[in-house]
Every structure is written in C-alpha cells, then in structure tokens.
C-alpha cells in the first residue's frame, strides 16, 4: 500500500533532531512494548511482516503523531484483536479508555509469476505495481532503473507473509539507483541502494 509509512523522498520535513548519546528507551513502558511484541513474534502469534504491516495500516494522523513505541504497541494490540486473542471491547475495558487500532488489511498477493533471476551487474527496472496490501517496495523506486550490486539469501515474500498467503521464499537484490533517476534535478547527487525482492523487478529493456 502507498501508506503514510513510506517516507523516503517526502518533502517538508525539517532538520534531524540529532542526539548522539541518547539511549534506546526513555520510559519503562517503551521497554515493555519492545519486549512484548518480540514475545508475541517468538510465540508464533504473528510474524514480523504482519507486525510491520499493522503499523503501516495505522490511521495516518495517528501514525505521524505517535512515537515509535506507540506505533509498535498499536500494531501489537491490533494483531491480538485480529488473531482473536481478545476483543476490542475487552481490550478497551482493561485499558479503561479507548484504544486506537490500525485499519483493516486489504488482500495480500503471492509471488509474481514469471519473475526473473538476476546477477550482479544486471540492469533492472522496478515494476510499476500498485499493491493494496503489504509490500516492501518503497514508492520512490517504482518504475525506476537501477543496477544489481548484491544478492541476499531467500526470505519469506512479505506481500504474502503479512497476509497468510502461500508463497515461495525469494532472494532480494541490492539495487543501486542514481538520485538523478529517482528525483531528476531535485535531489542531492548520490546513489541509493534498496533491497528489492525478485517479484518487484524486471530486466531493463
């Protein structure tokens, strides 16, 4: 989905609030959330792709105003309700107030048929797919051309794995894009590398 979470290249944000020595946690509840979502993953209640997708499905105004660990908590609670471990009413009764959850999921998809294999040095183009469910292709590379610079071992295919859809694992390719290709005349000159699943790529014509 072209969600609010897909931040790469969005304009209007200001300076990075750089804090070189800040710790990872600022409050006890953050430590608890960090542990609890990990416990749920370990216990097989949901997987990492379902977890990431439930963050992406947050109502956009909530997403941008929530801290990192509040987004994590919202995903965890949403999935506990969706997996039938608790009802939303019961969750809100226990929290003694309303508990904002993520929006429902759209259908997932399996691997793209006829996907190709690539080697380091191959020129590729990212498919112009618009996927309603979970996808790990940032919108800023859609339809863009790049060069394969690395290959990773096969991973569960996120577009399927976040939705309980059967699919083969797929390797990812590290693809190098020039910023002049991604944002012509509107970016600092650099190369951006993205880990791209096989199903998202075509050989460049």
């Amino acid at each position, binding site marked *: 989905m072209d969600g609010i979470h897909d931040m790469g290249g*969005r304009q209007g944000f200001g300076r990075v*609030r750089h804090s070189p020595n800040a710790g990872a946690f600022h409050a006890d509840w953050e430590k608890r959330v960090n542990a609890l979502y990990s416990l749920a993953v370990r216990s097989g209640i949901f997987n990492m792709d379902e977890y990431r997708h439930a963050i992406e499905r947050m109502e956009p105004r909530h997403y941008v105003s929530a801290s990192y660990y509040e987004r994590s908590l919202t995903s965890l609670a949403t999935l506990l309700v969706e997996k039938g471990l608790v009802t939303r009413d019961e969750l809100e009764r226990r929290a003694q107030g309303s*508990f904002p959850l993520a929006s429902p999921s759209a259908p997932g998809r399996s691997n793209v048929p006829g996907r190709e294999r690539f080697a380091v040095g191959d020129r590729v183009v990212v498919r112009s797919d618009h996927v309603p469910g979970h996808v790990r292709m940032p919108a800023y590379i859609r339809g863009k051309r790049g060069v394969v610079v690395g290959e990773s*071992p096969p991973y569960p295919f996120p577009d399927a794995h976040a939705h309980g859809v059967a699919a083969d694992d797929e390797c990812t390719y590290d693809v190098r894009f020039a910023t002049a290709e991604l944002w012509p005349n509107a970016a600092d000159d650099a190369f951006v590398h993205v880990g791209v699943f096989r199903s998202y790529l075509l050989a460049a014509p």
Partner: protein
Amino acid sequence: MSEPSQQHAVAPIGRRVDAVESVLADQGLRPAEFVVEATKTAEERWVPENGARVVAKAWTDPEFRRRLLANGKSAVAELGYELPRHHRHLVVLEDTPTVHNVICCTLCSCTAFTIIGLPPDWYKDLEYRSRVVRESRTVLKEMGLDLPPEVEIRVWDTTADTRYIVLPLRPPGTEGWSEERLASIVTRDSMIGVARLSAGAA
C-alpha cells in the same frame, strides 16, 4: 475497527500497555518475566560496543576484514555476535577516502540492532527517514558531517531483512594502537554512517 470508540478518551499509554500485557499473560506466556529478560538483553548485550569491536578487528586484521566483507554474518559470529534468525545476511559497507556509506530504513526503522544497538530516536524519526535518501549530503552536513564534494555518497535503505553496517575509515593518528583502544573510538553514529571518526575521541 479503525475509528476509536467515541465513548471514552484514549487510554493513557501505560494502561494500554497493561491491557496488552494482560492478554499475553492470559495465554500463559509470562510476559512480566520476559520483559525483564528482554530488556536486559537489549540494554546489556545489544550494544554499539559489539560493532566497535568488529570494526577495530577489521582495521587490524586484514584476513578478518576480507572475511567480514565477504560474509558479515559469519565473520561477526567469530567474535561471538549473532543476528536474529530472520536477519539472514549482513552486508558490511566499506568506506574509502572517496566513498562514504550511510544506512537508513525509510519504511520503518530496521537496523542490525544486535551489532550496533537498538536505533536512536533520530534514526526512527520521520525527518531522517524521509530526507536522507533524497538529500543525503545536506542531511549529513546538518548533522555535522560536511563531506568534500569529491566523496561519493552511497545510501543504503534497509527495505528487506538483510542488514547493513558501515565499516568507517580508520582515522589518521591511530597507527600502532591496540584493538581495544581502536574500538574505544568507534561510535554508533559512524557505523550508521552519519559521522567520520577522529583519533581525538579516545
């Protein structure tokens, strides 16, 4: 499902966490014990000092450096460091005098957290995630790293479960230093790629 119920104000965050924890307790998962154990692991074992040791060894041991660049995951395992099972590949990005690498995650906030520690706030903030891919040189300059124009910038967006760490340049003035002393100047920022190192920090 997406709309909060209108009858009540949003519950304070602590009570929402309590509610979720009670659901996991209902499943017999002993969440309170797990929180203690997982927090200890996150704060004591997943620390940037792990990555600093990897970097210092790569600076002093050419054979290790070769293995690290060929297969990061198996090389860090030689030093006793593990990645979670779902991180199946660790790519080590070698800086040179003319190439500077920087990592990010535009879609969420992925990092090699067992090696460089859980990510800092700014790495997870919308400012860094939106801007570093498109305005890398500007963002690095704002963060205090003003790279000469001849240095090529390579940004790495962590969009899959492969993880990246930067192998920063060994600073001048550190000739003859022990691995331990070298490790003491390697920062988390340098392994993310938003800082270069100097000998003066030790």
